[in-house]
């Protein structure tokens, strides 16, 4: 295993933080009017964002989508500002303009999030192009869903990135569902990684609940990108354990399917592995849980106590 103990603990930590953060949102969403808009969570999929972001450096860029909380926390976004934005408060990272759906955290090089399905990849092309144009040693990683793979924009982006050998990593988070439609209702192709061949780029399908596998695949793709060998496609097979959003009753998701995937949860999986390998103790883990708890509670407190923006602030920030 070429992954340092530190890195492995970092991944466990960001998964745990993300889960605790979103579990809190599950509860908050039950309170009428507390969390505006559509709250969309990553529960059970945390290995994707946490594995990928661990393989990236701070200067690397990520472009994410509507299911962004885990990606952003794993990239280092400040939980208070994130939670306050999800609450739509003035102290949120986007002053309440975005809310939960389009969180932008340029401070950690997560500059734009689009909730238009499939819109991330073309924007990521632009980011990666800028990196290439300026001769920088950094890369862009773009998260998108299995549903997004059916959008024309994703095709255009992959073709252009491959053509220009841009330092770009396409990370397809295949969680079986897109809205209420299953993967096989979106495409006849079981593994989306085969699409890579359509652009002469490497494509790999990894176990998206195995954070170390995700890490290794993204790390390799990053090295190729930095070496000027162009983009890669990494498909991470995982599962959407909650509904599309928090108002989705999941009537179309078989109960057994959900249960079987809950058992494959990436957090205990890595935890048990690390404990078994002696990298982590049960006490370490408890400490982590406690830390996540207090960070999330502090974020909630911060968000709760923060003011809403004044109505007229709506007029600000349209133009530079």
């Amino acid at each position, binding site marked *: 295993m070429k992954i340092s103990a530190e890195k492995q603990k970092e991944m466990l930590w960001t998964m745990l933080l993300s889960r605790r953060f979103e579990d809190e949102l599950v509860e908050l969403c039950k309170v009428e009017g507390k969390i*505006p808009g559509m709250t969309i969570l990553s529960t059970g999929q945390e290995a994707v964002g946490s594995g990928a972001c661990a393989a990236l450096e701070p200067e690397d860029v990520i472009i994410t989508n509507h299911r962004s909380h885990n990606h952003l926390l794993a990239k280092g976004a400040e939980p208070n500002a994130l939670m306050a934005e999800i609450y739509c408060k003035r102290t949120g990272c986007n002053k309440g303009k975005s809310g939960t759906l389009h969180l932008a955290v340029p401070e950690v090089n997560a500059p734009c999030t689009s909730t238009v399905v499939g819109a991330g990849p073309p924007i990521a092309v632009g980011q990666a192009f800028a990196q290439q144009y300026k001769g920088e040693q950094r890369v862009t990683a773009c998260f998108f869903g299995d549903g997004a793979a*059916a*959008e*024309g924009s994703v095709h255009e982006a992959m073709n252009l990135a491959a053509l220009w050998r841009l330092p770009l990593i396409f990370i397809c988070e295949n969680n079986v569902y897109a809205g209420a439609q299953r993967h096989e*209702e*979106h495409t006849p192709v079981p593994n989306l990684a085969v699409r890579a061949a359509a652009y002469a780029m490497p494509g790999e399908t990894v176990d998206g609940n195995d954070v170390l596998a995700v890490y290794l695949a993204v790390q390799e793709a990053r090295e190729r990108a930095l070496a000027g060998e162009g983009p890669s496609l990494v498909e991470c097979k995982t599962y959407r354990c909650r509904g599309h959003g928090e108002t989705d009753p999941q009537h179309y998701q078989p109960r057994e399917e959900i249960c079987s995937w809950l058992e494959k949860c990436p957090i205990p999986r890595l935890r048990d592995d690390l404990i078994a390998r002696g990298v982590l103790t049960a006490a370490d883990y408890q400490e982590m849980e406690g830390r996540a708890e207090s960070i999330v509670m502090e974020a909630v407190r911060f968000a709760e106590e923060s003011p809403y923006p004044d109505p007229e*602030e*709506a007029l600000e920030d349209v133009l530079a």
Partner: protein
Amino acid sequence: MQKLGMGQAVNQALREEMHRDPNVFLAGEGVGVSIHLNPMFPTHGLLEEFGPGRIKDTPVSEAAIAGLAVGAAEAGLRPVVEIMFNPFFTLASDMIVNHAAKLRYLSGGKSAFPLVVRMKSGAGIGAGCQHSHNLEAWVAHCPGLKVVMPATSADAKGLLKSAIRDDNPVIFIEHMGLYFAPMPVPVDEYTTPIGQAEVKRPGTDVTVVTWSGMLGVAMAAAEKLAQEDVQVEIVDLRTLVPLDKETILASVAKTGRLVILHEATRTGGFGGEVAAVVMEEGFHHLKAPLRRVTGPDIPVPASPPLERFYIPGDEQLVAAIKEIL
């Protein structure tokens, strides 16, 4: 009379037209199996009733959904396709604007494209500007398209039935806020003609021209002003294209004053068209300047106080009316 939300009214129209004409089919993202298990939503229960051959869930591919409609319509079917939210119309816009709207003309009148594109519009859901962005002005600026934007459940049902029977492409825009407001709908079979505005409240002092979700705001303002003895006449356009100029001009001829109310952003909104028509053909009736009450020129923000600020309200309308009385 039954009482239905607009989603239910749309649902009835779809159901009735699918029973009437086997060439009608539905396609879109989640029109069959939906994340909403809610009878207030437009396509609820249709999959069970008509089966997967006629209720087609699609991949997330707006251009293909629209292309499906264009090609199938030319081939003699009557597609009713859904673009989930108005901002995603951008992704279907080439197919609709450069194809659905133009291919008949390009064929010299040989082909017809009887299709309906349904989409949801409106702010108020806290989802922000990539879900809430009213772009009716775009489609209203494309010769070859008809544009329908009902404000009541009854109109939605009657107009959608007309749209499905129309031999031209019709853009049918539903306001999400109206899905949950039960309103009376006739029980017997009826259609509502495309291209006719309706005076939803008669009055003598000022004309308010509006459409879609803003009708309620206009009604509330009119109610308030009635208490101050100002009689507001409310013209609900219902159809933006073809525009019922006669009804607008007749009302302005009576009142001499005009306020246009729409939820879309101001600059370049369809209110401009109404203003121009009145200034061209009703100028001599006008006793006062025009007012437009619209969304401000900003994207729709997510935060509740900001979003409320965005959406035009009855107080703004009352103030605008008073300015020109």
